């Protein structure tokens, strides 16, 4: 039971990382990024490839993060300069299009066959908690996810750049008038979002393997986690993710494996209809 719950929380931390990236990008740029899943997929492949040639964990981490930075930057440039005046829906579909491109590039290059990769730093080691055995990697995922959420949360709150970013999120024009380099803040959001997802890929890959659809399989849960957290709260996104992971596991235990994938839909509907501000968020779901 304990191992199940820890496993659920670890899954949840991945949802949380995806959600965190989505929320960071959405807050500042107003773009709902449907390609977040492909950021994660790219991170997973980067980790797979780099672990073949380099055993130094720090180098692996840096390279995976660099892939996230590069993707975030590309998306920033495309959205900022090619879709300057586009409507919301067009931007949304543009991120979908870029997601299709990345996904199918990966299919052509790597084929659909999953590859196995062992856990970052700790490999495939396991540890006993009470009577149950869990992989160290799942503890790492949980710890890593929570740490990242904490760091981002306090960074947004207590550093100049973090504050500038919140100002841009609040009102882009006013921020620009106060001398904040808006473009740079938007770029930073995209880059951070890219890093979050790439890290998610690094952490998820050992558990489920590396394959082109690896990100697609968690994207919707990332959205649900973000909604659960209120869509504007960095910390809420992570808590929402972990909570969703635990709810899923409990659902499987008490109801049965069949419901696992329907649970997140149920949670989403409940949150949207009953508590539209999410559990921790302040911003109301736009209703009309």
């Amino acid at each position: 039971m304990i191992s199940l719950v820890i496993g659920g929380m670890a899954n949840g931390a991945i949802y949380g990382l995806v959600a965190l990236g989505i929320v960071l990008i959405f807050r500042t740029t107003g773009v709902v990024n449907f390609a977040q899943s492909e950021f994660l997929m790219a991170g997973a492949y980067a980790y797979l490839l780099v672990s073949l040639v380099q055993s130094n964990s720090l180098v692996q981490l840096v390279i995976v993060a660099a892939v996230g930075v590069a993707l975030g930057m590309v998306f920033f440039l495309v959205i900022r300069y090619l879709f300057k005046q586009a409507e919301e829906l067009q931007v949304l579909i543009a991120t979908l299009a870029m997601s299709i491109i990345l996904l199918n590039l990966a299919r052509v290059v790597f084929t659909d066959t999953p590859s196995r990769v062992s856990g970052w730093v700790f490999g495939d080691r396991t540890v006993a908690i009470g009577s149950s055995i869990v992989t160290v990697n799942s503890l790492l995922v949980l710890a890593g996810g929570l740490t990242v959420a904490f760091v981002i949360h306090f960074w947004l709150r207590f550093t100049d750049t973090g504050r500038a970013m919140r100002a841009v999120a609040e009102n882009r024009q006013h921020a620009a008038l106060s001398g904040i380099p808006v473009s740079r803040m938007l770029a930073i959001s995209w880059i951070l979002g890219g890093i979050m997802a790439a890290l998610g890929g690094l952490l998820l890959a050992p558990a489920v393997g590396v394959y082109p659809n690896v990100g697609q399989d968690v994207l919707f849960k990332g959205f649900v986690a973000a909604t659960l957290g209120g869509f504007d709260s960095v910390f809420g996104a992570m808590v929402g993710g972990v909570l969703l992971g635990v709810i899923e596991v409990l659902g499987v235990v008490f109801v049965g494996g069949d419901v696992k994938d329907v649970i997140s839909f149920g949670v989403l509907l409940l949150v949207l209809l009953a508590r539209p501000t999410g559990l921790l968020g302040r911003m109301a779901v736009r209703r009309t």
Partner: protein
Amino acid sequence: MKVLVTATVTGLAMAGLAFVLPPYDQYVVGRIAVLIVVTLGLNLLVGVAGLLSLASAAFMGVGAYAVIIFVTALKLPLAVAVPLAVLVAWIAGWILGTVSLRLSGFYLALVTLGFLLSFQVVLRRGGTLTGAGYGLVAPVPDLFGIQLTSQEWSAIALFVAGATAILVHSLTRSRIGRAWLTMKFNETAAELCGIDLARSKTSAFAASAALAALGGCLYAYLVGAISPEAFGIPTTVEHLSYIVVGGMGSVLGSVLGPTFLELAPELLRSLGESRALFFGVTLLLILVVAPRGLAGLTQIAYRWALSHLPDFGRDDRVDVVHADAALRPLGHRGRWKRLSADANELDFHGVRVVYGGLVALDGLSFSVAPGSLHGLIGPNGAGKTTAINALCGLSSVVAGEISVGGEILRGHSVRSRRHNLTRWGIARTYQTPLVVPNLSAVENVMVGMHSELHAGILTGAINIGPVRREELRARAIAKRLLERLGFEGDWSAPASTLGFAMLRKVELARALAQAPRLLLLDEPTSGLELPAAQAAVRLLRDLQQEADHPLTILIVEHNVPLIFGSCDRVTAMDQGRGLITDRPELVRRNTEVLDSYLGRHGHVGNSGNAPAH
């Protein structure tokens, strides 16, 4: 009849394709036909009604699975199974629409995505009923005892695609289509025209789901075998791409999108595995190069096609029978009841409206006599527009009462008040005209008659018999109204091409088309030059004379001399309260009114004997 005949002819012409092409190409065009049907449905929902859905693949799957299950497990004949499958999807769409009624934009998309994923789970765990991961095999299509070849089935798909395109085109021009476009443009304006938002949204969902399912039925027998993969996220994304590439909200786009995106990779068959990659790149390129899609790109061809296609319901014939019905067009004459003969048309009793910490109306009281032209004046921020909004149910009243014709508007939630407004005979205009840019001037006016017309989705699409006559009558009345208001410009061009003064006229005509007892005009002359403004007010007077029932007009204005010169009575407001309601010459001399305009508040309180300016 015209629509049905055109639909049949177009369908037959398209079906002919299947008999002249070689076998493989028959399959390709059949597939495109299926996608056109699905895309037409999705474009109605996303492009016309403005509701973003990612569930189209799921509804296509509902149709495909349902038809095979009905035929193989329930042994129903195909001719019964297909309509039944479409009906199932209609109901499923209606339910999804109802559940997500209050959501919009991204959250709506999210819920529909969740629906799609849950449907996938149902298919994969459905055991022998859905064939789990393997899916189902379609039997040879058997229509009235005749076994159809794949060529014949392609022909049927093409016929359905052609006929559906014509019917959907007609639907977008009908009462329902106008309501959807108005709702997409501005939900408040739509509600105050008597459009029931909940009904409009669920019907858009249901219609879109039904078309997707119809496509699904055709797909199942065309391909011969279906599995869950065919109805997953990638499929839904392809459907969305078709409308983006083709053109949002355009029927032509719904045809061009799938045709182009399906044909292009066929022509470049050497691409092999990377078909999806090509798809993504094309989608991105079209988004950048032609944000309005192929239909927008080929605007000239589009215009040509529009002017050469039969113009359903756009007849220019003015209906002679009703030529005299200039101002009291449709519906039930004299339906407005007054509790007693001497009741006022409108009463505000101590109405209080609060926005957060700001008191916008602080016990506003005034009365408006039946048939009068009543001015509401006051400095900026006095609460004039808030008073109108409180009456229309756009602002919640925390204390006090509003009554119309002596009947207190009580027990009505803010929401229900909004779409009952037309029924109560209240119509309004806005400071900035809210005219739907994608509809013509005439169609915009017809939106005002929404609740008096009866066309539904099917009758509107077929446009036959009484519905057609009613539509023609409404069109004639709309034109007469515009004519009476001195509208100059193109009746049938999109309103986005009209100038500001004409937009005001279109909006006023739409309000008059609601045959109101009480007309609320929010700064109707702002943006007009003085002679035009004076003419506009004279026109209002004339309209009151011509109306066959007492037409009361409440006019909110900044232009005080204009109000004093023309209104029967004037209410002066300041800081959320009514200062005085009286004849213009008395209001003009009232010291409190002078104070509020000349800003002597402070002086009066402090020195008591302030020197006159």
